[in-house]
């Protein structure tokens, strides 16, 4: 798309952000505070982004972001 916005997929949902939004921006938009995010992990395009690298993680159009946590499971 050429509307100047950042179109990415977050947990399987199409999302559109202001151009230049980085991973921390995406997390904040979901009310996930990167500073107190124990129990959360992130992968971009099937690669895990370590917590300490979140602040440096830029996103490109078409990126697929997965944000996961622990849930009940057997």
């Amino acid at each position, binding site marked *: 798309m050429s509307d100047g916005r950042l179109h990415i997929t977050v947990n399987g*949902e199409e999302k559109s952000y202001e151009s230049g939004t980085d991973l921390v921006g995406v997390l904040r938009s979901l009310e996930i505070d990167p500073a107190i995010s124990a129990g*959360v992990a992130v*992968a971009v395009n099937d690669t895990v982004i370590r917590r300490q690298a979140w602040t440096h993680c830029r996103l490109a159009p078409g990126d697929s972001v*997965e944000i996961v946590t*622990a849930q009940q*499971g*057997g």
Partner: protein
Amino acid sequence: MEVTKKEHSENGTVVEEKCGDFWNVGGLELKSRLLLGSSGFPNPRVMMEALAGAGTQLVTVAIRRVNLKDTSEDSLLEIISRLPVDILPNTAGCYTAKEAVLVAELAREALETNLIKLEVIGDDDTLLPDVDQLLRAAKTLVDSGFTVCAYSNDDPITCRKLADIGCAVVMPLASPIGSGMGLVNPYNLQIIREMITDTPLVVDAGIGTASDATRAMELGYDAVLINTAITKAKHPVQMAVAMRNAVLAGRSAFLAGRIPRRFYAQASSPMEGRVGS
């Protein structure tokens, strides 16, 4: 004549905890031989009580996408962290080695643990493992420093391969996940135990009731992993306690050493000195 009954001594009534009968998962030393799944409890309070009632020290969790619409829901981790248990994340729902490895890496990052219960499923109806993908994922994860607890079918050869790869625990199924069918092939489970003496073994999946857990432990398994049989019982907390006792009974019987089976009777009272003989 007045008969006074003597009280049973407490000594010897419980094999648990007192005798230093530990087992370990990749260096994590455990007293409890009952692992619990956390899925399907009616509410967090029942889960807390059941985990406590079971006396478990290791609880499985799944790794799933954060709910984007509501990130305020009660955190499972917050609930579990109130109990003296470690968390064993799983790769449930993965169908390929690639998916399972990614989920394991996400689990390690999210939960800061190297423990992973590896499940690679081959089919929706049976939820049986895809052996080829399972072995590949196990190798990759062991090489990456994970403590792999591998859910396997009850095939001795596959279990042997998983142990040889370096899995910390091999976990053959008793019967399909959630089926409650119990030990459908105890002979294979026995062969697996006899073949694999250098790696802890856990019977995972298919336990339906307390006697199933006891039988698994009587075969010499190090532990059992139970989820549905507890969470879907009419009274989950009561079943959790029953399972705890069942595991203790089975372990104790295994250590005590059962008598060999024989086809014909053998009198337990002496034959000498019978009246009229």
